Structure formats: C-alpha cells, structure tokens
C-alpha cells in the first residue's frame, strides 16, 4: 500500500496519460477503421486495393516498430512538428484502425446481401447504403470483437513508455529510481488496468443486451 500512497503523483500522472492515449486513439481508430472498411467494400477497385494494402501493412507490422517510426524516423522527415504524445496517438490510431477495419468488414459480411441490393433498387447511393442500411445492422454483431480490440489498445498504450510518453507502463522506472519494490508497484499498475477494463466490459454487455435482442 505504501508503494502506491508514497507515489500517488507518479501513478496519477501515468493514469491520466494512459486514459488520454486510450480515448484519443480509441475514437481515432474507430473512425479511421470504419472509413478503411468502407474503402474495402467500395465498388471502386483502386480504393479497395488501397484499403487492403493499408490493412496488410499495418496488421503485419509490430506496434513497437510503428511507434519507433513515429518517435525516431518521423521527426527526421521534418514535416509537421508534433509532440511525442501526439505521435504516439497517431501510431496507436493507425495500428488499431487496421484491426477495427477487419472487424467492421466481417460485420458487414454478416448483413444479408439482399439488404444492400434492396437499398440499391430503391436508388440509394453507395454511401447511403453503407451508412443507413448495412452499417447499422453490422454494428450489432461486432460489439464483442470491437471491445476486445479496444481492450487490446488500452494495454498496448504501455508500449509508448519506450517512446517518450510517460504513462502507467513507465511508472516502474520511477519506482525503481526512488528505491521502491518494483514488483509491488507493477501489481498496482495491473490493478489499475483491471479497473480501466471493467467499464469497457460492462459497456459491451450493455450494448449486447440492447442491440443483440432486436435480432
């Protein structure tokens, strides 16, 4: 308990940044991933291949490498200057979006093709068909896998420790420097993560109950 109470400042700083990374990257990846999923089912071949390329590259690159790129290589390109926090958010967003895209796409595949055809027959454009007919139905089946991806993202934020973003994953460095028991310190970090994941799990159940029932 002492380890936690003596270092509340460090834990608090870590927690705030972790939640910040998660919220920004979570929302970012949901939006971007859905857009890329849209590309992958679009009628335009070049957009489809761009979507596939994006997913293939990002899904097959270790996250550490993605963040490494943004922390060490991107600044050398001297394009737009971002803070390391922003760079980490961009990395996490791009990486997670690839997984979100695949989940959304699998959700789209669960919608009977007749739905889209009926929409087309009624004169809906592709965007309208996707946005008003297909996606709302697809969402229902993707809640559990999407929650998993977001939980994975939450835990992936700790990788940013190595790239100049101080969050829960960095806490142990300070503890060891201050001479506290690092193992106990890490157990508290693990507990923090449990506390952060529980609301996500509850949210998943809630959404499952409301949407799943109308099947």
């Amino acid at each position: 308990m002492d380890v936690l109470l003596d270092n509340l400042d460090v834990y608090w700083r870590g927690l705030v940044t972790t939640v910040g990374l998660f919220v920004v990257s979570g929302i970012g990846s949901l939006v971007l991933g859905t857009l890329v999923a849209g590309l992958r089912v679009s009628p335009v071949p070049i957009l489809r291949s761009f979507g596939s390329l994006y997913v293939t590259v990002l899904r097959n690159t270790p996250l550490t490498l993605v963040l490494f790129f943004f922390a060490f290589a991107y600044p050398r390109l001297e394009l737009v200057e971002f803070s390391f926090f922003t760079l980490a958010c961009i990395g996490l967003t791009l990486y997670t979006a690839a997984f979100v895209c695949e989940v959304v796409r699998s959700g789209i595949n669960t919608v009977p093709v007749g739905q889209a055809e009926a929409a087309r027959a009624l004169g809906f454009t592709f965007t309208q068909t996707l946005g008003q007919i297909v996606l709302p139905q697809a969402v229902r089946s993707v809640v559990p896998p999407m929650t998993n991806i977001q939980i994975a993202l939450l835990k992936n934020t700790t990788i940013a420790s190595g790239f100049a973003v101080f969050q829960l994953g960095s806490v142990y460095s300070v503890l060891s420097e201050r001479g506290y028991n690092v193992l106990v310190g890490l157990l508290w970090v693990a507990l923090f993560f449990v506390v952060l994941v529980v609301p996500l799990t509850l949210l998943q159940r809630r959404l499952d109950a409301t949407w799943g029932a109308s099947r």
Partner: protein
Amino acid sequence: MKRSRMLVAAALAAALALAGCGQEGAPGAEGSGYQPTVAENVTVEGSPTFETIQQRGRVVVGVKDDQPGLGFRDATTGEFSGFDVDIARMVAGGLGFAPEQIDYRVVPSAAREDVLERGEVDYYVGTYTINDRRKERVGFAGPYYVAGQGLLVRADDNEITGPQTLQGRTVCSVTGSTPIQRVRDQNLTTSIVEFQTYTQCVDQLINNQVDAVTTDDAILLGYASQNAEQLKVVGETFSDEPYGVGVPLADTAFRNKVNDLLQAAIDDGTWQTIYDGTLGRSGTPATPPAIDRY
C-alpha cells in the same frame, strides 16, 4: 503472392533502416589498455558471496552496455570497455580472478536491486548512485567516483549555459531517472521528454527534437568525446552523484573487501590509470573520492 513478397521486402528494408538509425557514429570503444593484477590465495572471512564465487570459479558482474566511456559493449566484438568495467575488472583481480573469468550481465537500472537481492550477480558496477533508500536493499562499497548532474547540448547552441537557462527548452533524460526528477522538482523547464536510453536522447538532441540531455556528467562526457563537432557539455554540475559498487545487503565482509580493494587502487595510482584510459580521454581531469565505510 508477388505483391506480398514485395511488401515483406519493403517492410524488412524499413525495419533495417530503422534499426540502424540510432547507431549513427556508434562509438569505436577502444580498450583502455588496463590490465588488472590478479591476487593469489584470496580469502574473505564470512562472506557468502565470495564462497559462491569460489565454488563457481567465475565472477558474475552486473554492468551497463550502453554508456560509452563507462560501461559499453562493442556491438561488433562483444567486448566490454569503460571506466566502470575497468573498476569491475580491478575488483575481480583483487578477488583472484582474471578478466577471462568474468561473466558480464547487462542489468537495466530498474532491476539492479532485484538482481543483487536474488544473487544473480556478485556485484554491480554501472553508474550506481549511492543513496539511503537503496541502502535499505543493497550494500554499497565506494564511492569510487563522484559525478554530478550536467547538461549536454548541441555544439552550436550558446543559449543554454546551465540549469537556470533551460526555461522553455526541451530537456531529455531516461524515464523516471533522478536527474529528470530534479528538473521537475526545481521547475527548470516544463518541456520534458523521457526515453528508455541516453543514446535515444542523444539521437533526438542531434535531430533538434530536444534541446538538452541531462544526466550525470560522466555519462554526458562519454557522448561528447565521441561526437565533439556536434555535442558539448555545459555549465557547472548541479548535484553530487557518488557512484558505488553494489553488493548484496547482508554481506558486510564482502563489502569491506571491495572497499579495501578500491582504497588500494586509489593509493597505488591504479585508479588514476583506469580513469586516464577511459573517461580521462575527454580531457576532464578527476581526483579519486574518499571511500565511505558505513
């Protein structure tokens, strides 16, 4: 199929390029030329650590491998070199073991107390600052060197001259380290960047992403001496960092033995030889500190 193979090739090329980018101007760490004298028939009364060493027939030393001039491993030859490494060799020699009988274990800062407590290393030499909190978990022989917090800046930067000139500039150090805590506590600047290694910080400094790297001047001098046209160490040091040899907490006999060896090296000029062959190459002179037997 073909396209995916090209992707893999492109990804590999990118990975290799990235892996190489932190290594620009990797220091050509030459040996200091120091050869320790190996003592004969050494006994250390009542020291479990020494008993373990004798039974094993080898010494296991905890070191750093990423601090040029202090504890550094040459990536190509695998050879360790530097001031701390030579001190470790001197101690091993005093215990009756030649440099060939030393196994080096690279231990990250965060794990130093743990490996000493678990007995995974016999002793640890690697910019290990003595402080009271750590004394609760490990023993310290020494100090064998007193460093102080300094600042490393780009050679063409004349605005940063010391700790009071950091306002509004970006300072980099290792995550959670004492120097960066001090910058925070003294409100020297609000713009702080923390990486896992000093090498990464120095990399960002050269790339203009940060304006100063702060840590013990000994470490900074190591970097500056390798890249003098781009980097320089500025200002007076603003702390005292006494470096000690970490030993297991309960083994007072072993701690005293290491203290004796350090004292002997200071008295007979070996310490100066080691310093001159390593950190002394930066042109900064040093005198040995007084051993503190607590």
